[in-house]
């Protein structure tokens, strides 16, 4: 019975690792492939949320009901709360600096369209 449970946990965590690792790799490919900062933001979002959380959950199934799982849950919770905050801070800072998406289809913000700056984008 005990072995059976262990095997089930193994299978579940392998499954979660495969999906999480797949999302992580896709996010990394997106970070390389996508054309500009704004679109890369979404690829990084995939790594930070789905990839990281799924892999952490996979590790939880390996750890079982121990203190390690408590720590993993805390890490997961912390990433869940902070990653959107830092993504928003990043997007907001870029927006304030006047970086605009490449080939924007629709713009409902009050800012006027400007070509994306070549280097650094910070007005010094």
């Amino acid at each position, binding site marked *: 019975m005990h072995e059976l449970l262990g095997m089930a946990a*193994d299978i579940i*965590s*392998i499954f979660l*690792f495969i999906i*999480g*690792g797949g999302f*992580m*790799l896709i*996010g*990394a*490919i997106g*970070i*390389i492939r996508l054309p500009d*900062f704004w679109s*890369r*933001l979404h690829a*990084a979002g995939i*790594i*930070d949320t789905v990839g*990281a959380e799924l*892999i*952490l959950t*996979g*590790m939880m199934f*390996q*750890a079982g009901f121990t203190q*390690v799982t408590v*720590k*993993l849950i*805390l*890490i997961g919770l*912390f*990433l869940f709360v*902070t*990653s959107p*905050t*830092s993504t928003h*801070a*990043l997007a907001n*800072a*870029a927006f*304030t*600096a006047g*970086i605009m998406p490449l080939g924007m289809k629709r713009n409902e913000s009050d800012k006027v369209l400007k070509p994306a*700056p*070549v*280097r*650094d*984008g*910070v007005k010094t």
Partner: protein
Amino acid sequence: MFFAILLALMVTMLLVIIRLFAGPTLYDRVLATNSFGTLTVLLIGLLGFLTERPEFLDIAMLYALINFVSTIAILKFFRYRDISRGLVQAPEEEQRNA
């Protein structure tokens, strides 16, 4: 199992380092560093499991915390050009900066 996922993690890390090196804008670099921090958290956790000593997760937790703080510090620095200033600016300061 842990080895395979660690290898996937390594490939991801390499791609993120390439983006960090290539830029081109400052914000791309901050984005890559932030993602790299998340990947390091996972790396430390998985390394603990690989060597069968998962008690080291404390460091992973510390990294998750520090990564967030340093990202916010960097962005704050580039938005306000100063780290010691409070996040809420007085109206007169805002006007002076505009």
